[in-house]
């Protein structure tokens, strides 16, 4: 059994707002915030609701996501801003639209960049970067062709 090489890419720097997200991520649970006052789905984590005409302070609660969504848009990365990602080139950087109506930036893995399309179904797959941090990444939903359905 060999020791995995040390993780050299940037890790999250949790704030008091985002700590619950990364704590849940460690348990492979994908979470986002929802406003008790107006129902807004909120991501990235905050402590005050940005919802339309909502003045909610302390009204955001954590909700678990199904971890399912669609590709909203993506690029194939050839020139990463951070050299730590160079060995991974080319890889897919994407904005996803989750089924609950919130969006996040992440990587789509286990996918063929040439055939990936906006609207493709994806599901979360966890990368345990370190003992402290697991990163939510996504892969095309297997088993059926569900492209742009619904």
């Amino acid at each position, binding site marked *: 059994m060999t020791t995995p090489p040390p993780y050299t*890419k*940037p*890790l*999250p*720097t*949790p*704030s008091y707002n*985002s700590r619950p997200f990364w704590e849940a991520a460690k348990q492979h649970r994908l979470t986002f915030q929802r406003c008790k006052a107006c129902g807004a789905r909120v*991501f*990235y984590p905050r402590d005050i609701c940005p919802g339309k005409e909502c003045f909610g302070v302390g009204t955001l609660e954590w909700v678990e996501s199904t971890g399912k969504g669609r590709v*909203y*848009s*993506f*690029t*194939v*990365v*050839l*020139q*990463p*801003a*951070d*050299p730590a*990602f160079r060995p*991974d080139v080319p*890889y897919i*950087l*994407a*904005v996803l639209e989750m089924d609950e109506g*919130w*969006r*996040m*930036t*992440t*990587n789509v893995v286990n996918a063929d*960049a040439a055939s990936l*399309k*906006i*609207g493709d179904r994806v599901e979360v797959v966890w990368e345990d*970067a370190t003992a402290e*941090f697991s*990163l939510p*990444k996504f892969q095309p939903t297997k088993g059926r062709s569900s492209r742009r359905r619904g």
Partner: protein
Amino acid sequence: MPDTMRGAAAIVGIGELKPERERPDRDTISLLTEACYLAIQDAGLTKSDIDGLIMEPEIQQTASGFNAVMAEHMGIFPTWATGCDVQGAAGVVMAVQAAAYVNAGLADFVLCGTATAMDPRAPRPEHSRRTETWGSEFTAPFGPVVAANGWYAMIARRHEMLYGTTVEKRAKISVDQRYNANHNPWAVFYDSPLTVQDVVNSRIVADPLHLLECVMPVSGACAFVVTRADLARGMRNKPAYVLGGAHSIQRNNLAHVGEISISPVGQASRKAFRMAGYGPKDMQVLEIYDSYTITVICEMEESGFCKKGEGGDWIQEQDFTIKGNLPLNTHGGQMSYGQAALAGGCSHVSEAVRQIRRTAGEHQVAGPTDLVFVTGSGGLFSQQSAMVLASEAAL
């Protein structure tokens, strides 16, 4: 809303440094000071005439008290000064802000400017690599692309999927702007012609964006002087009047708010046109902020030059060269003239002034240049500004 600003102020002096790929011997303050000196002299003024200051600090610099830094460096001591923090939208926003100040009586001669001495080829410092992604812990761990390329690639991909705006169509913007640059000796690509095939064949920097769809980073500086219309009329240059202007913010991070192929300039342009009493069809020259081909196409759609989604086809029917029906980015734009960071966006303003004065020389538009539409764009389709500049004839 009363049109108290319409034509009440004008740009009367411009100062700009030639875009250079490298300027290892100069820092930002030095470049900006020189551009400011040129603008004041161009206006026929002295340093002591300047009583208002709006200086935008270099991108990603925490220049606390930047106006004071510049005031001391230039030996100019104004009685009104404010900052500007709108990224690439700075040129238009500074001009409109200055117009409001002189109209309100806060100052008579407002000096505006920004610069960058960044060596575009130098390795980026560690903090820059981690922070330039506008983001944070929710982008950095996933490996964002250098500069803004990845985000604008995602915009281009959505526009391509929704409306079929392929690289073959987008390339038209690069090619027509290059033609203009080929007539501007200050443009970094003055000597190099460009074809659609060149753009399509250039390497992909962030799929689907190709290299020749992107800006060319340079060092440079740009400044201008704004004054009241009644003062402008007695001065040495033909005034470029501010007829209307606005600035619209729609998001900070691209990922989280709204349809990303809709750029914020729609709101700003509608307000600017309403103030000016003109519409898109009246504009004779367009100086539209160009960070990427897709940026220009979205801005023209949102500003009402064509319908949303029709930009890719509509641009094929236009001639955007200085000899064409709708001259666009007549200096070459940031893609072919050069983008001196935030001063790159300022170059759209200074070029509009040159066209209105009819002093652009080899790249002067042959047809009328009395009404010019100018935009600026900051961040990731985050905030965009729009302004109508006019000659005396179009007031």
